[in-house]
């Protein structure tokens, strides 16, 4: 297949996919050199929604950077705000009450499930099946309603605060979440029957673009992409943060490395997230949801701080450089899909266009997060 595509005797042509294209989920562009239906070279072109968050951080106080964090990855914003909360709490040595950590875990995991549901629907839509996304949205809507009842927003949450969360969860939320756990556990087998078992989908995903663990390592791929290639790495387990060490959950790992493996990792992760939420609700401690002694003006000691969380798309980490003043000297946002997409060019050379786009969907891209 690939030898045919790389044969220079054949004429090639250039195709611009994006920045406005139904498959790129936003404003991503690919400069593709094609040989008929085969891709010779597909170069991603980024920056169409670049907003320079890192510069924005430098001219505002630590507190004022909150809204930016939820505008990176608007699909699973909660994990990103979690990272920022953790980073600044680490830098300032703020202790977070246990109940607040539990609430954080519950909301982050709900958000992760929501993100995976959206990805699942969108993946199948990219493969031409239009119905599953609406089923996924049916379930996703429940999560958004639950999160809205706590955080007040549906997408760009600004719920976490240094030393805790904005407000406490109530009984309605707890009962609603429990009901949702039951509902989704019944729905996921239906999803598998409708989509995973489908012969056409298997043909579209199985064996498509297998990524080796070594390639993932060289490119710094993380998250479900890495776990689909057989590497058991999840920040929640390997570098436990927040209240995660207190929960019993598994990290789904598949060794095939193809699109199907990435698909299965995410599908299994939803069930694991449900387990985490269930345990967190069972063990939810009483107490305050916010530390009492959080100074109004934060002045972390000079130095470097690093914090990593497992977002829905991989390891999201932040590096803050403080010079001891009340504004960050430098904040670096390391977004997972940026690294995940960087292997696209190498991985898709010699592939069919349709397969390459299926592969791109299996990477689960969110463009604003990549472009920052």
């Amino acid at each position, binding site marked *: 297949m690939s030898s045919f595509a790389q044969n220079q005797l054949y004429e090639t042509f250039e195709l611009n996919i994006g920045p406005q294209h139904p498959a790129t989920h936003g404003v991503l562009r690919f400069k593709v050199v094609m040989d008929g239906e085969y891709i010779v070279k597909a170069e991603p072109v980024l920056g169409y929604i670049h907003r320079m968050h890192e510069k924005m951080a430098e001219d505002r106080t630590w507190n004022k950077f909150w809204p930016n964090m939820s505008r990176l990855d608007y699909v699973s914003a909660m994990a990103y705000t979690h990272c920022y909360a953790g980073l600044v709490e680490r830098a300032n040595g703020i202790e977070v009450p246990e109940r607040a950590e539990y609430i954080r875990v519950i909301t982050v995991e709900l958000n992760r499930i929501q993100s995976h549901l959206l990805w699942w629907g969108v993946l199948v839509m990219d493969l031409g099946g239009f119905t599953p996304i609406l089923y996924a949205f049916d379930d996703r809507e429940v999560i958004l*309603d639950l999160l809205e009842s706590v955080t007040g927003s549906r997408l760009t949450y600004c719920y976490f605060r240094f030393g805790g969360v904005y407000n406490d969860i109530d009984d309605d939320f707890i009962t609603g979440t429990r009901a949702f756990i039951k509902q989704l556990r019944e729905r996921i087998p239906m999803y598998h029957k409708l989509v995973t078992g489908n012969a056409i989908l298997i043909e579209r995903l199985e064996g498509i673009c297998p990524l080796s663990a070594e390639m993932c390592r060289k490119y710094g791929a993380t998250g479900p992409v890495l776990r689909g290639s057989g590497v058991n790495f999840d920040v929640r387990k390997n570098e436990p943060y927040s209240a995660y060490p207190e929960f019993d959950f598994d990290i789904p790992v598949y060794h095939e490395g193809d699109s199907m493996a990435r698909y299965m990792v995410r599908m299994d992760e939803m069930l694991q997230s449900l387990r985490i939420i269930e345990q967190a609700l069972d063990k939810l401690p009483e107490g305050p949801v916010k530390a009492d002694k959080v100074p109004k003006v934060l002045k972390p000691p000079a130095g470097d701080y690093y914090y990593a969380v497992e977002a829905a798309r991989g390891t999201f980490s932040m590096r803050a450089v403080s010079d001891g003043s009340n504004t960050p000297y430098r904040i670096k946002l390391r977004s997972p899909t940026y690294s995940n997409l960087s292997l696209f060019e190498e991985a898709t050379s010699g592939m069919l266009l349709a397969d390459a786009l299926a592969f791109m969907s299996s990477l689960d891209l969110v463009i604003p997060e990549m472009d920052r």
Partner: protein
Amino acid sequence: MPGYIKDIINSLKSLAIGLEITNREFLKKPITLQYPHEALKMTPRYRGHIELYKNPETGTHSCISCGMCASVCPSNCITINSRKVPGVKGKVLSSYILNFTTCSLCGQCVENCKTGSIGFSNEYNLAGTNKDDYIFDLLKRLHPEGIPEPVVDPELLKQEEEKLAAAAQKAAEKKAAAQKAAEQASTDASGEATAEEKS
């Protein structure tokens, strides 16, 4: 060959299962709402734009114009104008301008309000054709019929008047002294100007 046949049968089976599921969903009732005709109730914690709360005791807001909300706002969308009214303790809010076009609904203003005089509204279906429609004066929104005059405390007014009178007297004395000094030195004019300004 048996594998070939098995493949076909399995594929057809998986497709039939899919058809069966969509058929089952087809027979169920739609779950969507016809939005303009019917709408969901917003949760009490829903974050719309901010709104001044009416204090039932005083019949008006309890904002003391401390400017905390404006200073914590990441997008600088709050502008507070206040004035001093004789006989009223503290400053009186004359307008509370919210530029909702830049607001990111983070809620830090509400969190940092000491008097609890602002909160989120439940309004979600804002729509307009003009950018200026979203520059709200929250005070006017609170009192669309007209902003009531602040209640003057007569005792405080008396005290203030006395204080003012005393200050005026003091200033006059100072001025006189300064004039005297100026006459004596007849050089520095700027000192006079500042004294005048103070009075």
